[in-house]
């Protein structure tokens, strides 16, 4: 049975609808708008087999599915954001049909309209601070042993000396990183209107080198966007072993928590 469901990506204002010709959604179907009053939702048809409760449960645990779906979802939101103010919905918000989407829009129209208003002409920037912290493990390949490794008791002393040196180096790196984070915060003042703190990205699998010590999202008026970006890129100038990565502009994903049912959802928000 080829029953279809309705996948909702985002809420936009309905007064100046973006052109969605050629835009495809998570399952390859065209993205269209369903409107109700002042707001509209971007939706696309998805097959029941892939997006039923059971299928989603499986899919969300499957990294390949998750990556493909997340990128497709994000791609639709990016496209919308290029044209208009967007309220991104959480991944995998799925309805039975367009009528149900319309009903949801009707129920929340006031909330959505207020948030759209607040986010108009604002963009989100991601600012991540990385510290190049020396490895803590003495056996790590980067901790090159001195060329002539002494034997016996000397070896033990040399080992301890090396450990002490490494610990010191780590502490220094953290101190510098903290200073870098403080500077990004200072630089953001007067430009950003809001900040959300994401958890630092962790793990040896990180694509980029260094340890992520701060992972912030800032809401910035579009007209100040370039200045913000430039300031962030230079925030850590002169600080050794620290890197600031700036990503964006993003749709304001991180600043929609006020609509969430139950404020607890915005736990990461300050």
């Amino acid at each position: 049975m080829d029953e279809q469901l309705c996948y909702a990506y985002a809420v936009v204002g309905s007064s100046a609808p973006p052109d969605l010709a050629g835009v495809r959604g998570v399952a390859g179907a065209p993205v269209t708008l369903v409107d109700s009053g002042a707001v509209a939702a971007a939706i696309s048809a998805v097959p029941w087999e892939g997006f039923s409760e059971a299928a989603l449960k499986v899919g969300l645990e499957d990294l390949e599915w998750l990556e493909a779906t997340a990128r497709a979802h994000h791609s639709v939101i990016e496209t919308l954001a290029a044209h208009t103010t967007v309220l991104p919905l959480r991944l995998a918000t799925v309805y039975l049909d367009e009528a149900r989407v319309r009903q949801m829009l009707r129920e929340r129209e006031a909330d959505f309209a207020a948030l759209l208003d607040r986010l108009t002409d604002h963009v989100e920037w991601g600012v991540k601070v990385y510290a190049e912290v020396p490895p803590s493990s003495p056996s790590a390949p980067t901790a090159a042993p001195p060329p002539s490794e002494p034997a016996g008791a000397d070896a033990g002393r040399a080992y301890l000396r090396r450990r002490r040196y490494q610990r010191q180096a780590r502490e220094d790196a953290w101190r510098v990183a903290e200073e870098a984070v403080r500077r990004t915060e200072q630089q953001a003042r007067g430009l950003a209107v809001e900040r959300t703190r994401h958890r630092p990205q962790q793990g040896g699998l990180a694509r980029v080198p260094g340890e992520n010590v701060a992972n912030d999202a800032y809401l910035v008026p579009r007209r100040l966007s370039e200045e913000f970006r430039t300031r962030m890129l230079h925030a850590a100038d002169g600080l050794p072993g620290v890197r600031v990565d700036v990503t964006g502009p993003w749709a304001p994903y991180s600043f929609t928590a006020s609509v969430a049912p139950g404020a607890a959802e915005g736990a990461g928000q300050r």
Partner: protein
Amino acid sequence: MTESEPAVPTTSRALSPYSQGPSGANLADILERVLDKGIVIVGDIKINLLDIELLTIKLRLLVASVDKAREIGIDWWEHDPALSSRASRSDGRRSLEEQNERLRAEVEELRRRIAETPAELSGSSPEDGRRPREARDTDREPPAEPRRRRRVSDDDREGEGTRAEQGARRARTAEGTRTSRPAGGTRRARDDEDRS
């Protein structure tokens, strides 16, 4: 020393929906936004947000880029049933999920026994009420036996060379991903102190 990462989504602001921006954005950056942020509305298809929360915690431990990880030979999540539907259940350490399942089955079994008890008691004459119970307990023992035996054999298998090695390798990998945590935690804690 500053290094700029090209602001990836910028390029995607071109009007073409097929611009390469999104595909180039860091998966971790995208996931933390589409899973963790964004408006939460419960649609008609209910997904347990708690599941997502757990999922993102797991993801946080492992990804910035899945491809990169595979490239350098780290793929332990593919063997973890809690992380991948493709993972074989018989492979590797028993996950919490499996333990949970087993415990649940046992609870179910115990419930069933309790539910049956009154019926069986009322069916027997009062004076030999004790005997049927004993008989029943021994009767019921065998069905429970295979499960117990399987558990033992699981443990045995874990003692075997290859499996033990696998376990150790996985444990090392997990440790590798975890080493960064205490430092991060300390920093955050200190950060909070500064703030207060």
